[in-house]
């Protein structure tokens, strides 16, 4: 059904640790993985799915590691990739960083986790918070008699344990919107969408029932409310704690939250909003002599708001030299390893317009290889503001002990995949 065996390899293809779940694949097959991958890379066609004979390799890369699943069946590929990413998530939560060293340093726990996360190719409990209740790095200190499987593992509520206690009951809600933008060289917006996410930090005792109210247009429509200040969410995805059928029926977002940090939901909005930071650029290349760059950035959001840590990366040819900059605000820096100029503006108020000029020398001989035309990319953060206008209307918290709990809400809008193509 899914993976027969899972391997974690270093960049040279050496197996750091592995687990053979089903025994139908010869584990030495993994030795062919890296040569196959190298061959593909040489041909310029990497693919996340490789095969050799009847063996299929599904792999992902994380820092200096390859995580590879092997199968000989018609496995569910999306399940396998999801699982590999889940492995990364769990290991990262256990060891802070998942890399070659942390695998070696913790190989006993890694084995234990591999044993618990998947059985005979079927993923099992993958919630690291729950796992940490019975698989710990201090395993040697715990005696068998004390350690039990938390009921949570097999409960319908498999993400929250019972008996959690806080002195002060609070929920922190972060609404984070990322703006994706693609603009062509003529300045036309090809695509723009918003990917929003509602993140929770839950510090609540017991088994609380939560209900989140948003200004969702469909909900307003159902309840006959004025749709004026509501938002249309194109597609919504929920953490598994949310009762999906309930949402499907009456758009109620009701759930028993996981303890601590989690992403409650994400949504996509296909809004045609004005690009928050608009860039106009002129990049003139005079062969064998110089490159001149002029970039104008304009904040197209409310005057009261301020964009923080704005970073505008402008691509330059790889063989430029002697950079000179002039900026009306902020500072510009040439980053040769990335072949970009990064113009940083700490605080960029709405409605303002700034200018940056850059001048580079070019060598008198042409370089051999062709270079692509990377787009200008922009990074920014605008606090206290959601571009879609989405709002948390309420968060109802009900627990049988009847405590009072406070919800706190923060909004922030940031750049997602924000690209503007250039002409040169």
């Amino acid at each position, binding site marked *: 059904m899914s993976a027969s065996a899972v391997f974690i390899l270093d960049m040279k293809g050496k197996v750091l640790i592995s687990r053979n779940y089903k025994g139908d694949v010869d584990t030495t097959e993994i030795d062919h993985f890296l040569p196959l991958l190298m061959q593909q890379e040489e041909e310029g066609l990497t693919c996340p799915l490789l095969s050799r004979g009847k063996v299929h390799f599904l792999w992902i890369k994380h820092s200096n590691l390859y995580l590879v699943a092997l199968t000989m069946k018609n496995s569910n590929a999306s399940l396998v*990739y999801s699982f590999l990413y889940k492995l990364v998530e769990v290991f990262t939560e256990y060891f802070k960083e998942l890399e070659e060293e942390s695998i070696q*340093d913790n190989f*006993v726990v890694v084995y234990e986790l591999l044993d618990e996360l998947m059985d*005979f190719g079927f993923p099992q409990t993958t919630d690291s918070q729950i796992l940490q209740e019975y698989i710990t790095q201090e395993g040697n200190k715990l005696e068998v008699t004390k350690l039990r499987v938390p009921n949570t593992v*097999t409960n319908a509520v498999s993400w929250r344990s019972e008996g959690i206690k806080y002195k002060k009951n609070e929920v922190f809600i972060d609404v984070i919107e990322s703006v994706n933008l693609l603009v062509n060289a003529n300045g036309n917006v090809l695509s723009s969408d918003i990917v929003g996410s509602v993140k929770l930090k839950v510090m609540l005792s017991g088994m609380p029932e939560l209900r989140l109210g948003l200004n969702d247009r469909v909900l307003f429509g159902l309840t006959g409310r004025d749709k004026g200040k509501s938002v249309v969410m194109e597609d919504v995805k929920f953490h598994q704690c949310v009762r999906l059928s309930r949402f*499907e029926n009456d758009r109620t977002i009701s759930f028993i939250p996981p303890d601590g940090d989690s992403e409650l939901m994400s949504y996509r909005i296909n809004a045609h909003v004005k690009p928050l930071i608009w860039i106009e650029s002129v990049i003139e290349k005079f062969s064998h002599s110089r490159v001149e760059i002029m970039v104008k950035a304009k904040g197209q959001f409310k005057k009261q708001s301020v964009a923080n840590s704005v970073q505008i990366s402008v691509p330059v040819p790889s063989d430029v030299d002697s950079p000179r900059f002039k900026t009306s605000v902020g500072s510009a820096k040439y980053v040769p390893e990335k072949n970009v100029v990064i113009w940083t503006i700490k605080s960029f108020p709405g409605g303002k317009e700034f200018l940056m000029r850059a001048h580079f020398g070019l060598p008198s001989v042409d370089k051999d290889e062709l270079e692509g035309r990377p787009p200008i990319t922009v990074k920014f953060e605008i606090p206290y503001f959601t571009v879609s206008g989405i709002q948390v209307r309420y968060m109802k918290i009900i627990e049988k002990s009847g405590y009072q709990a406070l919800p706190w809400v923060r909004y922030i809008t940031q750049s997602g995949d924000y690209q503007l193509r250039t002409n040169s």
Partner: protein
Amino acid sequence: MTDSKYFTTTKKGEIFELKAELNSDKKEKKKEAVKKVIASMTVGKDVSALFPDVVNCMQTDNLELKKLVYLYLMNYAKSQPDMAIMAVNTFVKDCEDPNPLIRALAVRTMGCIRVDKITEYLCEPLRKCLKDEDPYVRKTAAVCVAKLHDINAQLVEDQGFLDTLKDLISDSNPMVVANAVAALSEIAESHPNSNLLDLNPQSINKLLTALNECTEWGQIFILDCLANYTPRDDRESQSICERVTPRLSHANSAVVLSAVKVLMKFMEMLPKDLDYYGTLLKKLAPPLVTLLSAEPELQYVALRNINLIVQKRPEILKHEMKVFFVKYNDPIYIKLEKLDIMIRLASQANIAQVLAELKEYATEVDVDFVRKAVRAIGRCAIKVEQSAERCVSTLLDLIQTKVNYVVQEAIVVIKDIFRKYPNKYESVIATLCENLDSLDEPEARAAMIWIVGEYAERIDNADELLESFLEGFHDESTQVQLQLLTAIVKLFLKKPTETQELVQQVLSLATQDSDNPDLRDRGYIYWRLLSTDPVAAKEVVLAEKPLISEETDLIEPTLLDELICHIGTLASVYHKPPNAFVEGSRGVQHKRLPPRTGSNESPESPELAQPAAAQPVDQPPAVIPSQGDLLGDLLNLDLGPPTSGGTPAITSAMQMGAMDLLGGGLDSLVMQGGAGGRQETGFGGPAVMPSSLNAPVGGGLGDLFDLGSGVGMPTGSYVVPKTVWLPAMKAKGLEISGTFARRMGTIQMDVTFTNKAMQIMTDFAIQFNRNSFGLSPAAPLQLATPLSPNQTIEVSLPLSTVGPVMKMDPLNNLQVAVKNNIDVFYFSSLYPINILFVEDGKMERQVFLATWKDIPSDNEAQFQIKDCHLNSDAVSNKLQSNNIFTIAKRNVEGQDMLYQSMKLTNGIWILAELRIQPGSPNFTLSLKCRAPEISQFVLQSYEAVLKN
């Protein structure tokens, strides 16, 4: 201190030392030693020699130590089966431990020890664990049944574990249910006929309930299992869909994709006119789009699946083109997939945007991506006719960049554009020729050579160009050699005087100096053709090429349906059925979409009438002709000239090719024999041969009769029975009925005058009002005698078409005035348009093709002719008697296509394409005419002629 220290001992005598430590009395030391053993095992050292010592550590109450020993056992038990027995006792004991964690661990590990001797000891503990009070143990035991089955299937069946497993589907705990489902599915997969997952509405209901409560992985198991179920009817199908759709909002992409699989499959059963069907279609798009924000590997799986979904149900994503635009930092495998989907979604509505993007991509640096982008531009040109011009000019711009691989790729696609739109873009040939030298890839060289050969008459130095290729003939790839051979033969047939030497050279290179059998055979065929019958050679080599289709890379519909059932799996990523890459699955049944139960089969919109989209599944459009059609084709081949070198081809494309060659040959043969007065029959000659085994008996008989009536003899045109034009009530006792006919090239109006009055009628005269085609009496109306009461006289009045013209509504309306001694009476009648079809309405094939292209497609009208039980030859004959001439006949994917022409008395041509599916009484008629308003009247004529 971290675990990494365990990896550092590399001293000699290590094993010996470890042995001592393992047998130490101190717990701590023991554990340290086991860790070192595991560390060695991890780095690939063989520590199997320590087996008895490690197993001795198994009996411990330290959980961590126990887990490590278990791990060791799983690794080495197979190599030490006899010693593994030593561990059995501890396993059995652990399975009864008060701590469920230990019980589960023991049963889980035991299942992983793939040693036959152990399995029998496993049965009792497993039986207990399957009924354990703790769900954690039960869910582990459920999986263990699948493990055991993998080792010893018979044992599992004998022990009745399968029934216990089935019972777990009704377990109160969702995780247990999910694992039981997963285990059963796994077992069922290797035993396809076991009927293990006997899914019924009750069990489905249980699964759907568990779906809401189990983990994300459990949801995937359940959804994948649901996808194997076939609902009884559309109502059940809808209710399952309704309960599955909430899963589309799950954060895990794999859950979403498995839900999409269930929905895509069950949707097949919903009637298309159902409101819910439309709702469901709308619900599918947003989650599919959101999958594109997942990690690249998951995006890749999603894109490969979207590629299938777009082919199966193009309407779902037709408005989502933009999300497939390529981003600079997308990995290459994502870029290539997005490009593929962009072309599939390209339509007249979005073509401008798509082209702008493709042009952008074509100037990137990644060679594979650029190539594919250039190719995509060509595919757009072929797919969206309105964009062809823009595509060609974009390609020319790209050729100007002189980037080698861009130029080559552009030339390959331009060749296809020439084939799709002949006589339209040949002006660019000069530009192409400039780049001849830079072509170094076989495909591009072959394409260029094809172009030179095909348009040899327009390229002044075609001979020089081809000669230059000939110099290195033997170094070329086969593809280029074959193309060069054909191109030079074409050139010779077009310019025989200057190129005799060249053609002899290439023929000798191909036949004498080559050891490639394909090349040699083709050389010989040309040689013999040219030497025995140059006219025939011309007909064969320069024959009309079949049109190339828009989508050359569509997945064959039955495969597509199978792949839809495998959404999310490797099969859907490879676009191959599982038995193509999974061992031992040959006997496994192909998954199929359920048949639609709804009644209404009408496609929602004309756009959907595309192949594969709206066709009912049980009757997919055959890419490979079915047996019957193939037989029909073979028969046709047998009837062809005995020189035919065509062997029965397997693919339809080859079949068409062969047909075409022979068709051309036949044509020329007929022309050759034309002296015998058969000129007029033309291509109609072979029409009397029974062409289809599927033809109903009636049609066959008709054929025989036609044959009896003699080849080429006109069987007489169809005349509508007379109708009453003027009732006696309205004309003071004079009743006029009549009809129109065309006889021997003359239009005649057959009129019957009946006197229903009490008095004699005399002094008849007739006059026509001005009409659309200038019909007027060619002679005065002459009734031989006065018309006595109750007397009837029949008159045939010859008509000419030189009278005054005025457009009438309807077009074929004729207003007539008849006068007699009593009064003047007016009436109007509608004449069938076929009386206007003239005898010289047969267009030349070349002209036909050019004209067809030339008439804008807006002028095309398509009709269905229902309930006509004739085969194509009978149809041809019947129509020909009415001056509707069949110019060519072609068999495309089992359908007969008749290309026909007719000409009106005023010189207007009407072109027709009549599509006949053998065995189906419904024909499709496409008409093209510069005066499109005439089409409906032509249709009426077709119907009248064919049904009478």
